[in-house]
């Protein structure tokens, strides 16, 4: 019974979301009413029977720690295995590793202790609702060294620009990994690799003063390695800019996307927060919107995503907006094409309007008056 360990590598994810990543890393950014970006990767791994998951992180991971807690909400609070947040903390004067390789190097113990022989690696910016067991079975069946999870994109957008593209021979073996922007066969950043091979490649990279495991350890060794791909279907999203963040929140207001992302497989798990059901008051008017629990709605909400505990007071209007946890929209406010981070208060009578392409973004805990 072969199994996989999980690795969520945040090392190369820069703080791409402006105001939303001032105080937190990208993986901890709220999404779709009740989630954080990392929930999708975590849930997919847990569902694929991955029982040890390590997170390589460097900066602003406090809110990530807060969100993940003991891991209980993903059933990862285990005595053996479970969830490990691994910030950089090394003190070996002989260590010459750089970039994400120093994470691999300094956390060798984590890999050695785990009982699984395979590792599934992912970032947090690719969102889908998937079970990677199929990809794993395929990896074993094909006898590949590495299996890249890929997706075919019908409409390439700016969010795909940073993604690597894949060319294959007719046996499915990867012949090239490129940056060619017109290639619709996109690498999702998720891949499966044998643990021992990974550790060997890590050593090799460190010996050659490299700093990026996938680029230098896998991509540059394309000749030596047998690499397969496993294509994923279903709704998915790359979130790597405010623009893609906003657009994909709005996309979920299309019922088909909503069903595909949330109801296709098991549910995406997130931190449980004990909010009561959402309360609709005397004069609420809600249209085509997603609302998490704990909201209190007394105004007008249209085409918007409301996170937990948002209060919309009488006479307020929220249109085409993403309103995060515990924001308060006071009487007579008008919001359109706006993203409010957590705990923002918009005081009585204010109006804020952004555009579809450039939504108006407000940082955490601001009082807009």
């Amino acid at each position, binding site marked *: 019974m072969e199994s996989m360990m999980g690795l969520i590598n945040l090392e190369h994810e820069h703080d791409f979301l402006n105001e939303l990543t001032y105080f937190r890393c990208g993986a901890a950014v709220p999404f*779709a009413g009740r989630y954080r970006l990392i929930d999708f990767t975590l849930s997919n791994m847990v569902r694929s029977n991955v029982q040890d998951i390590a997170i390589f992180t460097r900066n602003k991971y406090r809110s990530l720690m807060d969100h993940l807690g003991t891991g209980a909400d993903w059933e990862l609070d285990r005595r053996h295995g479970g969830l490990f947040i691994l910030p950089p903390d090394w003190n070996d004067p002989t260590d010459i590793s750089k970039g994400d390789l120093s994470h691999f190097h300094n956390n060798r113990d984590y890999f050695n202790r785990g009982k699984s022989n395979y590792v599934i690696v992912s970032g947090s910016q690719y969102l889908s609702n998937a079970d990677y067991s199929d990809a794993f079975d395929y990896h074993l069946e094909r006898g590949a060294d590495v299996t890249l999870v890929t997706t075919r994109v019908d409409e390439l957008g700016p969010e795909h620009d940073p993604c690597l593209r894949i060319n294959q021979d007719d046996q499915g073996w990867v012949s090239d990994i490129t940056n060619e922007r017109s290639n619709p066969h996109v690498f999702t950043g998720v891949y499966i690799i044998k643990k021992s091979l990974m550790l060997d490649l890590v050593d090799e990279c460190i010996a050659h003063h490299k700093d990026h495991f996938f680029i230098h350890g896998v991509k540059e060794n394309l000749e030596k390695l047998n690499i397969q791909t496993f294509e994923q279907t279903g709704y998915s999203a790359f979130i790597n800019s405010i623009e893609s963040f906003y657009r994909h929140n709005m996309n979920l207001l299309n019922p088909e996307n909503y069903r595909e992302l949330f109801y296709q497989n098991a549910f*995406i798990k997130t931190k449980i927060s*004990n909010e009561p059901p*959402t*309360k609709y008051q005397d004069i609420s008017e809600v249209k085509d919107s997603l609302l998490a629990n*704990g909201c209190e709605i007394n105004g007008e909400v249209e085409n918007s995503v409301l996170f937990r505990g948002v209060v919309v007071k009488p006479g307020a209007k929220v249109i085409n907006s993403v309103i995060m946890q515990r924001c308060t929209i006071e009487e007579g406010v008008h919001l359109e094409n706006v993203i409010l981070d957590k705990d923002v208060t918009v005081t009585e009578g204010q109006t804020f309007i952004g555009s579809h392409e450039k939504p108006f973004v407000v940082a955490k805990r601001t009082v807009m008056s």
Partner: protein
Amino acid sequence: MSKKECVGMLLAGGEGKRLGLLTKDLAKPAVPFGGKYRIIDFTLSNCANSGIHTVGVLTQYSPLDLNKHIGIGKPWDLDRQADGVSILSPYTAKEGGSWYSGTADAIYQNIHFIDRYDPEYILVISGDHIYQMNYQKLLKYHKEQEADATISVMEVPWDEASRFGILNTTDDLRIYEFDEKPAKPKNNLASMGIYIFNWKSLRSYLMEDAKNPTSSHDFGKDIIPAMVDDERRLFAYQFEGYWKDVGTVQSYWEANMDLLEMDEMVSLNNREWRTYSHDSNYPPQYINGNTNITNSYINSGCWIRGTVDRSILFENVEVDSKSTVRQSILHPRVKVGENSVIERAIIKEDTVVPPNSYICTPEGEEPYVIDNENVGIVTVK
């Protein structure tokens, strides 16, 4: 096992016959309530919020769903190895086993469990009441009175007093008489079925009571009267706030409606006194098209295209377009087809209400309880 000051014993064994269809395969405390809770969540949350971390839950009747719901007690932070929540079902010992024959007997049969924690005090509560109460205040009062037992009471209107167990007290609230449903009440302080006992004292009464073949082994009928007879120090503790025994379909429906109307009395949104329950991780509710939702609680995973007014919708309920739900309670995963009307009804989980249905409880009648078996029969349109 380390000593605990106070152990909670939660009586959750009742069959709840008067709840009819609602308790067909379900223990009464496991009946869904308030849009995302089950009835027992209120008492369990009271325990968690009051710092009562050792709780025995006495079950007997159809406990499977209840056991599954309580599980290891995670939502209430009662998933602890040494104390936390323990589900106590009947068992056999060397001298054979027996079912719990009354509330006092249920505690009697679990004396070993309680003794393990060597407590000073025992809190006895029921799993079928809706209220928010800090048991620490009750305990503090009990200690201050140097009581043997303290019973939580509330004032009820004089003309309803004869429906309750009434405690007759002196001015300083010392109890001198217990009157079960008195024809001519002398007082309007009704017992809420919430007791604190000194364990040593209760233990000896339980031992005596168990030997008595004519006893019904009930706290209200046997233990309390015996203590009163012996002139033990029994005190009433006056609770002010919302409290409701959801013993009938009517009172179950009313208590749910109270959540919508009496926000200031029993609030689900009180951050200082959270009511905890499971969360099945349904995605956010989806409000589709031009809906009209007023005065309602709606939980995650719902999909609303119709009109909802003064209603409570549990997780993953769907209300299709041109349908109206009023003054009703829709349990998890109920689907209401289009062009239907539901008024003053309780729809049980997983029920599929076909399109063009008309389920309205006539004025003055007890709200209908609908499941997949009777949905076709009740529908009139």
